[in-house]
């Protein structure tokens, strides 16, 4: 039996939500693409389900409301940074209200493959005002645990190419115009992104996790952190 959590919103939150109804746990894994997030989430899901926990997954750009349109808009690269930022906020809010809150009410463990911090960090790199972002995302629920997988930009790049994946236009920060070289732009963008994360860490207090080890070693650390929040095996 999981003891009931005392949830709160960062700000006023979503109108009409009774926080006392929320029973589950909200656990967030942050980190850049190719940091091993998806692998870890799959492993953590197996582990949690084996222990009898019901798990719900959320992520970015997965809402019923706008994910399709968001994808289309990104392909064309036609939205201004602020519009894109608000589009993502809409996507987040839709998942918060329709996936995260209902799952927490039902006592699920919600594993979030990134949360508001990635959205904020990306916007900060593109010049957004932190106070504005904090206000927009004051609707968000404060998670029980936020872990940030740290992997050096060079290592990320190696993993990308090693896996035969093409560098993504957005993950390389090509829209910002640092450099016409994808390599240079990627390294610079990921470095700036990390810097923004560090700024956010000072405010929101994530747990940094060294992602440059074997997947098994990373999983063990994540499990230990999660156990501290959900308690030992039932």
């Amino acid at each position, binding site marked *: 039996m999981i003891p009931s959590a005392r949830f709160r919103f960062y700000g006023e939150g979503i*109108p009409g939500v009774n926080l006392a109804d929320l029973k589950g746990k909200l656990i967030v894994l942050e980190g850049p693409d190719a940091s091993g997030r998806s692998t870890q989430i799959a492993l953590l899901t197996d582990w949690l389900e084996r222990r009898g926990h019901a798990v719900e997954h959320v992520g970015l750009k997965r809402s019923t*409301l706008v994910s399709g349109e968001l994808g289309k808009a990104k392909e064309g690269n036609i939205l201004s940074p602020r*519009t894109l930022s608000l589009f993502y906020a809409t996507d987040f809010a839709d998942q918060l209200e329709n996936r995260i809150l209902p799952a927490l009410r039902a006592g699920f463990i919600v594993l979030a493959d990134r949360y508001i911090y990635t959205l904020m960090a990306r916007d900060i790199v593109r010049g957004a005002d932190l106070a*504005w972002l904090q206000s927009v995302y004051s609707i968000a629920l404060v998670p029980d645990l936020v872990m940030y997988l740290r992997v050096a930009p060079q290592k990320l790049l190696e993993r990308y190419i090693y896996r035969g994946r093409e560098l993504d236009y957005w993950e390389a920060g090509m829209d910002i115009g640092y450099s016409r070289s994808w390599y240079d732009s990627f390294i610079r963008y990921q470095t700036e992104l990390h810097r923004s994360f560090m700024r956010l860490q000072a405010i929101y207090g994530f747990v940094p996790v060294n992602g440059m080890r074997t997947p098994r070693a990373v999983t063990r650390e994540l499990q230990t952190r999660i156990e501290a929040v959900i308690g030992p095996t039932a």
Partner: protein
Amino acid sequence: MTMRPLRNDTPGKLVAVEGLDGSGKSTQVYLIKRWLELSGYKVFFTEWNSSSIVREATRKGKRRNLLTPTTFSLIHCTDFADRYERNILPMLKAGFIVLADRYKFTALARDTVRGCPLEWVEQLYSFAFEPDITFYFSLPLRTALDRILGGRPALKYHEAGMDLGLSPDPVESFKIFQGRIHKAYELLAKNRGFTRISSGRPVEAIQEEVRGVLRDRIDLAHYKAVARWIVR
């Protein structure tokens, strides 16, 4: 967080019109646009909720009732941001008189009636300039209701405020919803320095008053288009 309104520091002028459905604001702003363009001024007109990229998502959300007060608010702000950064701001920088048929106050009124905290919505829209002039077309609630309900048979779900669960009857719901919007507008009119225009009069009389305000408050000569832009 306290809000400090963002002042328009561009060479252009931003004129917004706000008011209930049926207040006659669209007719009036259309006539203003015609007057300015026929007199050879640089004028640009923009409407609420008309940007093409976000429209699709908004439509889907409305049709399938997927929207909550928060996502309703965010999706409209997304749409507004797109239009603001793509149209309004460039035209202001280019030195145009920008006429906005509904502006951020429409969101402030609607979203707060739907339960979003005022401060949150204000922050959301804090990137957008305060208008140089905001015309508020006011008329008694009953008159506005009669105009809308007399002319149109079916009310749309969100337009009637059905998502608020005020009444199962669309017409009843619309009346209650508009009543609350009306109150929100009245409060904004007081706090945000709107120029109030009484709407229950002949179109021509109202138009004359609005033109008078524009002449007084904007140095129109400054916005004269260069000869080659005048449409003959």
